[in-house]
């Protein structure tokens, strides 16, 4: 029993560690597209004393620093909700990690967490994280947060449709709601079988992480930092940590579902393949993030629903067609 607990704790810590590296990758690639050098991978000797020997864990230090900062709770806010909702969303993000499919550690995981409908748990956890953030922001009673929540909820409504239909079309395709089964049953990667589903997933991620062109809920120049305007110190650190983990979870989940989790060869290579694919996925996200300015809210609300409806219905239809003719 103890061994299993240690196993899960180390699994979570390892994954959080990986998530920091993913965010480093994201920031580095953004910088590269902008023609900058970006965070230094190796800091030259003379500077090591002041800024550390590598910047790969920058996100970790950012968050750690936020934890050491003064936390301010606004006077007018509903204190309990304001504090508790980031904590709940953090716990939710931690809960998702063991459900993810990793080629090597799968067997040990299987004993405990082989739940036939784990995909549903992941889906709802991811959606709930966002909802709790917005509840917490609503409790902060800031006008900028209100505008941010209003925008974020409007877009997230469609984003969730997109996400759910993407997941469900895969579930229909594979005839299962278990992530493990989906991975194992994939003979051909689902991204080839049902590319619309993958696009729906990406559409969801764009809104979920406030990537351009749909970053209307957190755009700095219009509304300071959207829903998170009032958060500071430890709570902001917690939100940042959750965001980092969520970013990581979503990219891994994408590979799990659509690219057979990288399970093409023997086990150790598979893990690397998984991470490499996930890295490529991050690069694609970064490209989209970097070649567009952001939409105005009304433009976003005009275009995004249309995209969502087209791609999610296409993906569901495609899955049904496969189901009818081949399954």
């Amino acid at each position, binding site marked *: 029993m103890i061994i299993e607990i240690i196993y899960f704790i180390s699994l979570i810590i390892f994954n959080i560690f990986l998530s920091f590296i993913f965010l480093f990758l994201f920031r580095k690639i953004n910088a590269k597209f902008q023609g900058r050098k*970006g965070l230094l991978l190796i800091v030259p000797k003379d500077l090591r004393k002041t800024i550390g020997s590598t910047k790969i864990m920058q996100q970790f230090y*950012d968050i*750690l620093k936020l934890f*050491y900062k003064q936390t301010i709770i606004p006077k007018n806010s509903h204190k309990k909700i304001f504090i508790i909702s980031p904590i709940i969303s953090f716990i939710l993000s931690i809960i998702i990690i063991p459900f993810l499919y990793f080629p090597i550690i799968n067997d040990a995981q299987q004993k405990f967490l082989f739940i036939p409908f784990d995909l549903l748990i992941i889906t709802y956890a991811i959606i709930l994280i966002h909802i709790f953030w917005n509840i917490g922001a609503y409790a902060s009673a800031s006008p900028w947060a209100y505008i941010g929540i209003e925008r974020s909820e409007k877009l997230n409504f469609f984003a969730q449709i997109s996400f759910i239909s993407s997941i469900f079309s895969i579930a229909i395709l594979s005839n299962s709601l278990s992530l493990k089964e989906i991975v194992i049953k994939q003979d051909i990667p689902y991204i080839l079988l049902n590319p619309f589903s993958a696009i729906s997933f990406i559409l969801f991620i764009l809104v979920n992480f406030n990537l351009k062109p749909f970053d209307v809920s957190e755009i700095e120049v219009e509304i*300071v930092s959207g829903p998170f*305007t009032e958060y500071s110190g430890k709570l902001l650190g917690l939100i940042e940590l959750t965001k980092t983990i969520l970013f990581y979870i979503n990219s891994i989940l994408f590979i799990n579902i659509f690219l057979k989790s990288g399970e093409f060869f023997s086990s150790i290579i598979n893990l690397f393949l998984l991470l490499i694919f996930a890295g490529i996925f991050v690069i694609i996200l970064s490209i989209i993030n970097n070649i567009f300015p952001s939409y105005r809210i009304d433009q976003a609300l005009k275009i995004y629903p249309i995209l969502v409806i087209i791609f999610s219905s296409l993906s569901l239809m495609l899955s049904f067609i496969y189901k009818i003719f081949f399954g």
Partner: protein
Amino acid sequence: MLSWLKKKARMYSPWIYHFHAGGCNGCDIETFATLIPRFDIERFGVKLVNSPRHADIIIINGPITKQFVPMLLRVYNQVPNPKVVIAIGSCALTCGVFNRNGEENYALAGPAEKIIPVDVCVPGCPPKPEAIIQGVIFAIKKLSSKK
């Protein structure tokens, strides 16, 4: 161990709040120029933030005009401790060209150090972005020694 981590975290992720307090825009443009591809201050993990609550370092440009004083004080008080103030340009340091040779300039509330303690001085009119980067590195060193 914890205090060591705390110190490292503060040094490795210095977030900057930029405060424009009058002045001619030259220093502001040069401060923003540290973000661009050529100078890219982000490679050190430095980030320009929009809220003083998140900042560790305040960059002040310009001879502080009287209309800016209350705002400067508020921003200074909002930045949590430990904080470091970098005064950039001769305006922020001594009112530069706007000083009246010892007499009071009615429009200005005087240099930054009259109003808040300044920790790092970056002279220049305006300083080159390299000099501003040097100032930030100095500020990080100072940050590590503060409690």
